[in-house]
């Protein structure tokens, strides 16, 4: 593959392929190891969020196949509803700890602004995704939440477009529109992490800067590579 004008692909598919491989070469997309600094519990919460999301999507798919009232009259339905609800609780729990960890290590460093932005927007979109799920329960809890939350939507002027008491609209948002956005953002977030690498701790970045300084004070941790 060459970037000379003569050898540039003539089709848009070829140009997309070249751009994709240039931005995210296979060895970056599917690396065989991670830097040694990733061996820390604080780096676990991103992948824990991903694991929770997989369980959410899996249990949600089963629930959507059977319909929103299934969990009310069968034990199996109740089980999958509980798995779905508790995986959402876990998703937010680990996502918030992930957010705290990344905030305090200033994870937008080193050209990672888009990684940070996609993560933050995912969190913001996940909130209405969960809310529309709570109002799709078809019970008194859903009724209470929808009427309380409707006041909030009305107060900011979007109640006419996002009507929490309209079950059909909320269910569509919950099982299709918002999950598509969340999954798309998470995919972009993960690909951006692959492209830029996992953000190093602040201490290692300082050591790296020191290693390149006039005194050449080198430290082994400044050269952490894939492990």
């Amino acid at each position: 593959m060459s970037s000379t004008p003569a050898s540039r692909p003539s089709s848009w598919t070829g140009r997309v392929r070249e751009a994709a491989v240039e931005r995210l070469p296979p060895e970056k997309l599917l690396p065989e190891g991670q830097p040694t600094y990733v061996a820390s519990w604080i780096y676990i919460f991103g992948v824990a969020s991903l694991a929770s999301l997989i369980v959410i999507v899996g249990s949600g798919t089963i629930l959507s196949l059977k319909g929103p009232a299934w969990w009310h009259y069968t034990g199996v339905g109740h089980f999958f509803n509980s798995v779905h609800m508790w995986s959402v609780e876990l998703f937010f729990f680990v996502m918030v700890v992930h957010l705290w960890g990344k905030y305090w290590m200033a994870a937008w460093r080193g050209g990672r602004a888009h990684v940070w932005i996609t993560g933050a927007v995912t969190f913001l979109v996940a909130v209405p995704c969960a809310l529309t799920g709570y109002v799709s329960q078809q019970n008194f809890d859903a009724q209470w939440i929808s009427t309380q939350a409707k006041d909030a939507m009305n107060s900011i002027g979007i109640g006419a477009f996002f009507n929490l008491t309209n079950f059909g609209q909320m269910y569509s948002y919950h099982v299709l529109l918002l999950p598509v956005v969340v999954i798309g953002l998470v995919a972009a977030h993960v690909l951006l992490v692959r492209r830029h690498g996992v953000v190093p701790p602040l201490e290692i970045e300082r050591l790296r800067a020191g290693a390149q300084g006039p005194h050449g004070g080198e430290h082994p941790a400044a050269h952490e590579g894939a492990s």
Partner: protein
Amino acid sequence: MSPIAASVLGALINLDHPAHVVKWHFIQLSVSNIVVLGLMLAVFALALVLPFPGARARAQSRREGGSR
């Protein structure tokens, strides 16, 4: 949940009441949300201080020129 299990659980934890709420000026939080917040802070703190299995050995082997 079976009726017997529900009775036993109900005897231990009485859920038949409005949620307990903590109020401080305009801030109003349910006790259950405060518990979850506390757990998140605890998990965050533990993640910072607890050693990760094998991390020290891996870093040591890297310093000594090992592959992994």
